[in-house]
């Protein structure tokens, strides 16, 4: 399984924000879409990611952070995935590097975002499916009739 299979059932492309938008606007987007991170884009091109973490960190230091802009708070050094990246590698990298949101880019264009929750769900469904298939085979007798 690869990340394209996760994006296929997520419908919309990732929620984006422009670096010059304010944190207040960004918070409204996070709230409206019930998500944990926004991708900052210039055109189709991702230039950063703004997560709950980035906002909390700033909120603890600066009470006036609402009026600052996304470009000041976002993480610029973003790790991105490609649609054909396999689930195991992505799960490993996200776990090891403590990444909770992975923008997915195809030929330089943003095509979606997967969260660590998406990855965990996909892995759970994958294993559940395998167990189910094996059980079905084990629970039949030699002639294939249900026992």
């Amino acid at each position, binding site marked *: 399984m*690869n990340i394209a299979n996760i994006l*296929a059932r997520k*419908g919309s492309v990732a929620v984006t924000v422009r670096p010059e938008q304010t944190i207040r606007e960004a918070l409204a987007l996070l709230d409206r879409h019930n998500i944990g991170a926004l991708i900052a884009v210039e055109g189709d091109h991702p230039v950063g990611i703004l997560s709950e973490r980035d906002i909390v960190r700033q909120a603890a230091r600066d009470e006036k952070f609402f009026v600052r802009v996304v470009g000041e708070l976002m993480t610029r050094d973003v790790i*991105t995935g490609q649609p054909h990246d396999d689930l195991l590698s992505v799960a490993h990298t996200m776990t090891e590097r403590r990444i909770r949101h992975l923008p997915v880019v195809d030929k330089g264009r943003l095509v979606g975002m997967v969260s660590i929750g998406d990855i965990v769900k996909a892995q759970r469904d994958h294993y559940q499916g395998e*167990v189910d298939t094996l059980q*079905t085979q084990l629970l*039949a007798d030699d002639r*294939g009739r249900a026992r």
Partner: protein
Amino acid sequence: MTPSPGTPERPLRVAIIGAGPTGFYTADHLLRSAKVVEVDLFDRLPTPYGLVRLGVAPDHQKIKFVTNVFDKVAANPRFRFFGGVEFGKDLTLADLKACYHQVVYCTGAQTDRRMGIPGEDLSGSHPATEFVAWYNGHPDYRDCTFDLTQERVAVVGVGNVAVDVVRILCRTAEELATTDIADYALEALRQSRVKEVYLLGRRGPAQAAFTNPEVKELGELADADVTARADEVELDPLSRAAVERSQDRATQKKVEILKEYARRQPAGKSRRLTLRFMVSPVELIGDAAGSVTAIRLVRNELYATSTGALQPRATEHFENLPVGLVFRSVGYRGVPLPGVPFNESWGVILNDKGRVLDSDSKQPVVGEYAAGWIKRGPTGVIGTNKPDAAETVECMLEDLAAGAVLEPAHPQAAAAEALVRQRQPNFFSYADWQKLDAIETARGCAQNRPRVKFTRIEDMLAALGR
């Protein structure tokens, strides 16, 4: 205001399109819910089970045991099957909206991806799925022909379809004679002159999709020697690091098995199967008559993407592999359904967790859903479609609770059946299928085979006395 459907007086009426595993799992989840649901399962073919009947290899009967689960679902009095009824042709979306509160598309990934290389359409080059559908007795593919007088065959891809195809090509007629392979295919394969079979993977052994039991089986064929190239089964540094890091025992074992194949001395069997890695086809070369004579391959190297996934990249090293027959199995995608929004990027119905979305507004379309491969793409084993279907059914029940269902003019089981009878008088019910199943198994019993399949719709009708 009428009460919302889902009660004994007013059952929730659901049409499911596609009677493969996902169609049955979706029906199962719906019928087990706390609401009173009536399910009509449609398939364009007369027979149920989808790829379990027409995709799973005939020498893998155990995988087909899952039909026991489907038969239990079908035994529910609130379940009906309408085989031989095609969505978009016999019944339109508008027809279904007149009879059902909800419609679920479970049509799978019906087409194969092309390799996108010159010569792909030469005579002797086929999608692997056509060969699979042919040997499994799919009525639409039973009259396909494959030139099995060729001695050398390449199968592009290392997923389970590719592995099935090489295995069937390498099996003896005696091995196949005890399976439920289509009779005509058994006869054609009995005459096969295939001697050299190549399975071509674009990445290395650690990335190959086939499972360990599948690869082991290739080493136990009655009359085919299996081999691999020592230089190709040796892991490159990136793959070795990835395998060590993940402590993935299954992959380590897979590589060991393949290394053992590379060391094996041929036992003088009639056929030889060679497992190749790190090569991609760049061209099919043909003769003056337009038939394939060779496949041109480029050697690949692997590189790590930013997430650590290993992807192939072509080098400057090429080789020509002489072959007269090529089967491609490099991926699958869904086929758009008439009037249903489609996501071209991923080859699936445009959806969010199974809710079909409008192409423009990207908002859910009331009453329409998707599950299985047409929802997430072709991945996973049969059982993976069970949690997938559960997610879609959860959305359906949420929408029902919120009152977001279709408002059919004729929400009665009898009205739906009358419409089907009018459009497709020769439809097949589950009882019809059970009669055909009994005949197929009885015919099989006489020949010590699981079943002898019907492969023509006319023959099925005749057997039912129609």
